[in-house]
């Protein structure tokens, strides 16, 4: 029997892994991949609640609709971020986020 807690703990573990990636990695592409992991953790959480909680049909389908939106925004974010990274690479020949501090006050 799958229970809601299983799904939630999987989502929490995936989120924590993505968080570690965002904090510990120095390559901008790696950070982007870790952000994708965190977004997927949110999606797992959403589908878990949509499937298990005692909701009406409208809320259940809302859970799935919300995931469609998250996936859409994630795709848009990834396209833009990769474009910015490519641009950065052309300008600085590096994707090390520690070196990108020109706008730091």
């Amino acid at each position, binding site marked *: 029997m799958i229970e809601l807690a299983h799904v939630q703990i999987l989502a929490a573990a995936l989120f924590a*892994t993505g968080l570690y990636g965002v904090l510990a990695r120095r390559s901008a592409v790696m950070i982007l991949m870790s952000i994708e992991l965190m977004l997927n953790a949110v999606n797992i959480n959403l589908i878990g609640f*949509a499937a298990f909680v*005692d909701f009406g049909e409208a809320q259940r*389908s809302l859970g799935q609709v919300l995931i469609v939106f998250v996936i859409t925004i*994630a795709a848009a974010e*990834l396209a*833009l971020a990769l*474009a910015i990274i490519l641009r950065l690479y052309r300008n600085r020949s590096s994707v090390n986020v520690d070196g990108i501090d020109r706008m730091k006050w």
Partner: protein
Amino acid sequence: MITPSLALFYLAATLVMAGALGVVLTRNIVYAAFALLASLLGVAGVFLLMYAEFLALVQVLIYGGAVVIVALFSLMLTRIQDFERLTDHRQWPLAAVTAIGVFALLTAGILTTNVRTVERQSVGLDTMGETLFTTWAIPFEVASLVLLVALIGSIVLVRASGGRD
């Protein structure tokens, strides 16, 4: 008791977590991209187990098909050797402590919260489509506009601008 569905869930969860750990731990960025692919396919498996077959399809198409391929392409347009030289941050133990702390906090919250659950069920594709195109039609159109703007914006950003790069 281990039912077949629970065994499948553990299988999908193992795939998800192994892929995720591969993404955050490997030094080679191409391996990381393929580990990301494995993790995202595991998430599609979780969607299937929650009876959300449309989302599983979307996940495989968009993440497995598009996102990982785009990430690999961007790696190939730049020079991969430069990525391989990048090691982790000096402060990675701090990051590990933060991540474990967040996981412990979330798990504590999950295990102490009582949610009234039912046997897992899902709405059919027809109901979901109806909701998406009636109640959420305008947000859906806005989302498509956002996607269009983002994609055009990224094309403009990476376009070679006449040697004035």
